[in-house]
């Protein structure tokens, strides 16, 4: 591979090479909308009075893993943060930090993956930036995306509205993303196939129950820290707690097996394409039914209930009939999974 086939410092230098890089790699894929004339900032038409705004950075290692790559993840992660906030993503920013020496072919693969995922999510790339740092100053390729979205009518999500008796739902199997990345990084092979990341947009799951939005109290995508972290976030400092039932929590066999093997509590492992929702009991069955009718929610389940006691804690009813606390993960369990 010659020097021309790799990222060079001059690709971020503001001169001719950077202009060519933007033209060939960025505008070729994203030049249809606001990026056509490469403005310093994009002016976007807007309908409602509110925007919902979020940002996230992506440093996953390895950059490709079963079920996705850093490009698709950089779209899904940000689109999903908006979705579980009750908003449909409209525009993303796309910032790249590239390490000198990275093959341009790999940059192309990642950008193509961004383009495919953005199209599938119905979101445009409105603005972007590229920086190049010297060899050894970043690990290959980091991405930041920010997203703005429109509120979906009816969602007024807040922990404050949760009441004992409300149900806790999850849209599919848990822990697949974190363990898929870990297995890829550590080259752990699992007979019969290892875990596959669930990285995917969840906006469809949110929209399909939008007419029931008034009865949906709260939603999260259980990324870092997994199901345990989002449920603890929900109960901390509240006058009620949550009880979940181990046997009802959907788990892919390969993910469960690997978690056992590594001694990792799968409740602490990240998903990238799931929704955790707390809703009024009377709509729980209907939401699970509608989610299960979709390909991205086939294994949705009602996994537990909001309880009066113990307040401020998440308790797991175990398979063997016991009960135990579900704690927050301590320290950094699985670094660089997103």
């Amino acid at each position, binding site marked *: 591979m010659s020097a021309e086939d790799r990222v060079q410092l001059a690709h971020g230098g503001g001169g001719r090479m950077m202009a060519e890089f933007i033209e060939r790699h960025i505008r070729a894929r994203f030049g249809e909308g606001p990026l056509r004339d490469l403005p310093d900032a994009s002016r976007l038409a807007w309908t409602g009075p509110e925007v919902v705004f979020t940002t996230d950075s992506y440093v996953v290692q390895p950059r490709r893993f079963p079920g996705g790559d850093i490009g698709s993840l950089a779209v899904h992660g940000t689109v999903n943060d908006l979705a579980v906030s009750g908003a449909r993503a409209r525009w993303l920013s796309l910032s790249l930090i590239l390490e000198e020496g990275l093959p341009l072919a790999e940059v192309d693969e990642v950008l193509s993956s961004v383009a495919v995922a953005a199209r599938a999510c119905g979101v445009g790339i409105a603005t972007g930036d590229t920086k190049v740092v010297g060899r050894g100053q970043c690990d290959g390729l980091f991405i930041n995306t920010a997203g703005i979205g429109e509120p979906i009518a009816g969602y007024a999500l807040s922990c404050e509205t949760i009441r004992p008796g409300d149900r806790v739902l999850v849209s599919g199997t848990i822990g697949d993303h974190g363990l898929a990345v870990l297995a890829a990084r550590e080259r752990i092979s699992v007979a019969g196939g290892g875990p596959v990341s669930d990285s995917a947009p969840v906006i469809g799951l949110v929209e399909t129950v939008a007419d029931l939005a008034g009865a949906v109290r709260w939603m999260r995508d259980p990324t870092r820290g997994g199901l345990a972290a989002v449920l603890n976030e929900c109960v901390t400092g509240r006058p009620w707690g949550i009880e979940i039932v181990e046997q009802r929590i959907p788990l892919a066999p390969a993910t469960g097996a690997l978690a*056992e093997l590594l001694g990792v509590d799968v409740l602490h492992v990240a998903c990238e394409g799931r929704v955790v929702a707390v809703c009024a009991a009377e709509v729980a069955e209907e939401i699970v039914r509608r989610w299960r009718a979709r390909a991205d929610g086939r294994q949705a389940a009602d996994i537990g209930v909001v309880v009066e006691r113990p307040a401020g804690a998440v308790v797991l009813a175990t398979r063997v*009939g*016991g009960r135990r606390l579900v704690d927050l993960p301590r320290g950094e369990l699985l670094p660089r999974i997103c």
Partner: protein
Amino acid sequence: MRYSDGFRQPAAAEALVRMLHERMAVARSRRGAIAVMEVCGTHTMAVGRHGLRRRLPEGLRLISGPGCPVCVTDAGYIQTAIELAESGLGIATFGDLLQVPTAGGDSLAACRARGGRVQVCYSPLDALRAAAAEPGREWVLLAIGFETTIAPVLATLQRAHDAGLGGLSALVAFKRVLPAMEAVLADGRTAIDGFLCPPHVSTVIGAAAYRTIAERHGRPCVVAGFEPLDILAALVALVELVAEGRAEVRNEYARVVKEEGNPRAQRLIEEWLEPCAARWRGLGELPNSGYRLREDRARYDAERRYGVTVRTGRDAPGCRCGDVIAGRMDPPQCPLFRRMCTPDSPVGPCMVSSEGSCAAWFKYERAEAAAPG
């Protein structure tokens, strides 16, 4: 997963819990309450993780024993390891030791942040890799633990020996599980009617090794795996043996543990080590309860090689880890538990280690009191 699912079947668990309650009812009518010590910290963790304590019948109490290697290691050991790191040596250690505080509040993690070369290992073989990767530096492997860990550490030293790799030695504070069980009985402050014996240690020493405890001390011993059905089945057996006054050894983990243990690992221990007195947090100095490297292997012994001695350390003020380790106190009875001492800010080793009783109680059982029946 299917393999482990088999040992967590709800229906089988219900059946065993029912049996346990029935046997315990008989035992209570004959002799009153029963206290069983689970020697191994990973058993304590499994009890917490599967919520088993709530399934125990009235009158049956589980007491955590001295089976967490990090917890029983004397406080002075960490101080010596820090001194070795500060003299420029590389330190290879399992992650659990990193956060253990000295009485002065120092730790290997803090030493690393100051620039000490402290490398976390997932296998003792990682120490060989570290030594090979930095040939200009001599490395010390922190070698604590019971027979389970002793064998792989010795296999690592054997490899270094065979490869002529001169730069690796070990700071040895190995422990033997049987003398600790005997010491807990001799201490007498905690009544123990039987032992739930550690599975991994037993793969090395063999189930037959517990005959001493059964025959000399009149306490039944049952070797159990870490799955919830393993533990329940072992408790059923223990309650029955205690009720009938039969001090016998049972192996409920025969799918892994053999009567005679692992002869190859035992040979390795004999070749490399000799028994010696050892200091235990909570139990004090016990004769023949540890191992040191034999004279002809002295070059692999960091103490002799670098002229250092692990001195008796002080525990942090107020720390009751010693009482927890010896089974004299359950973690929530310690005045520091949850108040001064948490996993994020531990005072003693039992709150640090992934096998520590305090960590297990904090992680899985601290809301138990508030939970509805």
